[in-house]
């Protein structure tokens, strides 16, 4: 299946992916509204910065996901390879936050956890991929 991959050679650490992610998940029609309003949406992608190297990290959609294994409420499931959260089931225990080896499950202003769903329900192409100015984040099929 198609996944998001990051090439650290081209990641500039500009953080635009984070902003595009937040905006995509904010439900707002305008980016200005998404950030200058009262509530801000936490991005599901995070730039890890080093001296010479940067890269973006978001849910890897693992083949054997520890988050799904550990979820006490059965809120996290794998559907067609994409790990999704069912907001109605999440009890906010944050076991998944603790167990994700990549630190890719985040919390927001709400009780339920947030994570990358590859923007499948919204645009088809992940917002971080679309918004990357240097093609450092790509959405593609790899063997």
């Amino acid at each position, binding site marked *: 299946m198609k996944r998001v991959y990051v090439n650290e*050679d*081209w990641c*500039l*650490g*500009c*953080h*635009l992916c984070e*902003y*595009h992610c937040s*905006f995509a998940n904010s439900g707002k029609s305008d*980016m*200005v509204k*998404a*950030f*200058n309003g009262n509530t801000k949406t936490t991005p599901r992608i995070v730039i890890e910065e080093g001296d*010479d190297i940067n890269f973006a990290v978001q849910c890897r959609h693992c083949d054997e996901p520890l988050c799904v294994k550990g979820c006490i409420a059965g809120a996290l499931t794998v559907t067609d390879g994409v790990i999704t959260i069912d907001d109605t089931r999440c009890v906010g225990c944050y076991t998944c936050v603790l167990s994700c080896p990549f630190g890719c499950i985040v919390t927001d202003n709400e009780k339920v956890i947030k994570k990358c769903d590859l923007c499948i329900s919204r645009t088809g192409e992940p917002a971080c991929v679309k*918004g990357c*100015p*240097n*093609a*450092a984040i790509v959405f593609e099929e790899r063997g």
Partner: protein
Amino acid sequence: MAINYFYPDYEVVRNEKKCIKCKVCVRQCANEVHTYDEEFDCMTADDASCVDCQRCVSLCPTRALKIVETDNIFKKNANWSQALITDAYRQAGTGGVLLSSMGNPQPYPVYWDKMLINASQVTNPSIDPLREPMETQTFLGKKPRTITFDKEGNITSPTYPNLKLNIPIMFSAMSYGSISKNAHESLARAAEQLGIYYNTGEGGLHQDFYKYGANTIVQVASGRFGVHKKYLEAGAAIEIKMGQGAKPGIGGHLPGTKVGEDVSRTRMIPRGTDAISPAPHHDIYSIEDLRQLIYSLKEATDYKKPVIVKIAAVHNVAAIASGIARSGADIIAIDGYRGGTGAAPTRIRDNVGIPIELALAAVDQRLRDEGIRNDVSVVIGGSVRSSADIVKAIALGADAVYIGSAALLALGCHLCRSCHGAKCNWGIATQRPDLVKRLNPEIGYKRLVNLVHAWDHEVKEMMGGMGINSIESLRGNRLMLRGIGLTEKELEILGISHAGE
């Protein structure tokens, strides 16, 4: 001293309502124009450092930024422009030569814009390139004067090595050093895909790029940086650089700060040393010396590669070109006074040389008058800005064009003309690793391919309109051009009639 204060040329205008303080501008500006003030939770900008490269504007996700020209003005003076006044202040302060980059931006006439192209009506059908073959393939190099066959019909007369171009466009010489490795990789890969050539410039050939040799023109310039046998053998052709349109009569200077590990190895000079190309080749003080270098290079490469001689368009260009044609060069490249540069003294860039349109017309006619036009190909550059310029150049007599600035535009250049600052925010004219990585060759080469394809399409459309289906029938076909708003003398030099004639 207050006299050393210069009001910034540009002002950064930030729409506070739109700004979301994402700080992408802060992270992306190598000139450190933008800052975020934690104390006041606001964005600030130092206009004085802004070069108007448009990087922040292009990356701002909410279009909250724009750069405007300042309206702070000195008292108006038609003789002493504001630029001249501030230049005088600047030089009074430093005692130094002023530097600039990219092509001459002064408001001299652009002759491309004073020529119009013909089209067929009624008496001769136009040709639709979507329905009929339309050929833009061309060959560069010396053509045989005679052709003979043996009894079996085999060719017995000598032939000469030629460059085959799928499209009559090449990327002009830009050295590794003046531009980044990623820029070079983009040019090399695009040239390979397009079936054309890029040019190493005087910076040697990076070890990673020998694989693109079949689409590479290797340059030999006055500093001889990076020149060795393997280098000469790697390219499809060898270009001797005698001059550059942006700075005729002077050499080049790559500051030691740009000479890092890779550049040092490629140029074969110690790390951190200035790479200074002398004004003349010190083994060429006359035309007969040029002949010796041409034949040395041919000898070194077994007469298998065409030799290009590149000169700047100067007053006596026609006679010089004729001398070059008679010195064994296979191709003459002429660079007009609008040609780009990574760094040149401002006064030279803005005042030395002549327009490429006039130089081309004069050279082509001179070579024909002397009956030697078929002995050499003529390639021109500096500056070719669109497919229309290409059609006009070929109709005036060029075999192909070099594009430099236009290629850099495809890679993101916004012509801020600050290359000499070495902090190119687009990752082109810089060696700083964090900036170089901003130019992803995977994107870059595709954009170059797109640009050249688009221009090729447009050239074909214009050719079809004229009823011409092969580029060679356009070459030197000056009847296809008419001048507009030109004097008798200008028309005479261009060898064209005025519109309406």
